[in-house]
């Protein structure tokens, strides 16, 4: 599990790759979000295109990240969802919580 962070148009883009699962990926995601917020990020775009598996802990971390960012008057949005991640968000009904986009460009424009 690796998470790359980059910045575009004032938005922090996090790109986790691999499994966001208990004990490893979920911790990495938590740390990456915390690091971004500590560095002053307000809005975060999570590009999940490289995520292969997300378990309930991974989903929990996404929810925690959403709450943390929202509490700072920012927004956490999602882009490039693999079909299986979309399935999970639909099953858990979290698809109604997150703003989801099909392209990074479209997602970045939504922050403006």
């Amino acid at each position, binding site marked *: 599990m690796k998470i790359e962070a980059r910045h575009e148009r004032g938005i922090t883009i996090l790109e986790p790759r691999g499994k966001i*699962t*208990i*004990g*490893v990926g979920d911790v990495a995601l938590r740390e990456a979000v915390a690091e971004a917020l500590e560095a002053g990020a307000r809005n975060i775009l999570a590009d999940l295109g490289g995520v292969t*598996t997300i*378990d*309930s*802990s991974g*989903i*929990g*971390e996404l*929810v*925690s990240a*959403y*709450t943390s960012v929202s509490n700072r008057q920012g927004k956490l949005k999602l882009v490039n969802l693999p079909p*299986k991640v979309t399935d999970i968000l639909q*099953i*858990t*009904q*979290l698809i109604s*919580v997150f703003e989801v986009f099909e392209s990074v460009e479209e997602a970045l424009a939504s922050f403006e």
Partner: protein
Amino acid sequence: MPVEEPQVRISIGSRFEHIDLIQVVVDDALERLGLDDDSRHWVGIAIREAVANAIKHGNRQDPDKQVEVELAIARGQAIIRVGDEGEGFDIHEVRDPLEPENLLRPNGRGIFYMKNFMDEIEYSSRPEGGTLVTLRKHIASVGVTEAETAPTDGASASGSRADGDSSS
């Protein structure tokens, strides 16, 4: 004739990093039984949740406590049992993660995952202490033998002898 019936039994210390091992072994067995990629993905997720719960909530991440995982094939089903050495819990106390007040809770979706991705899920107490969760998934490529079609009470037989002769 009975089809191939791999019997798998694995015991791990209560560490999250061992979950991948369980998933790899069970995935390999289910692939040999002809379960398609998508189904194996979701079964794999369900097993991960069961093992994670056993490690986290059952054994409280005590590495000296074991989580035991068994895979058996019977009556056209893959039957996965995950046992821990914990103090047990009341499944009725588990919150519904779809209730609006729970939607943004970071925890509490593990059992929900299992219920969604498996055909059946059942919790029971182990005689020696601890909790046993039994997960069942129908596999179309696994036939039901004549012996297996004999009258049975189905789910309630899950804790018995489908896993008699073990290996690996």
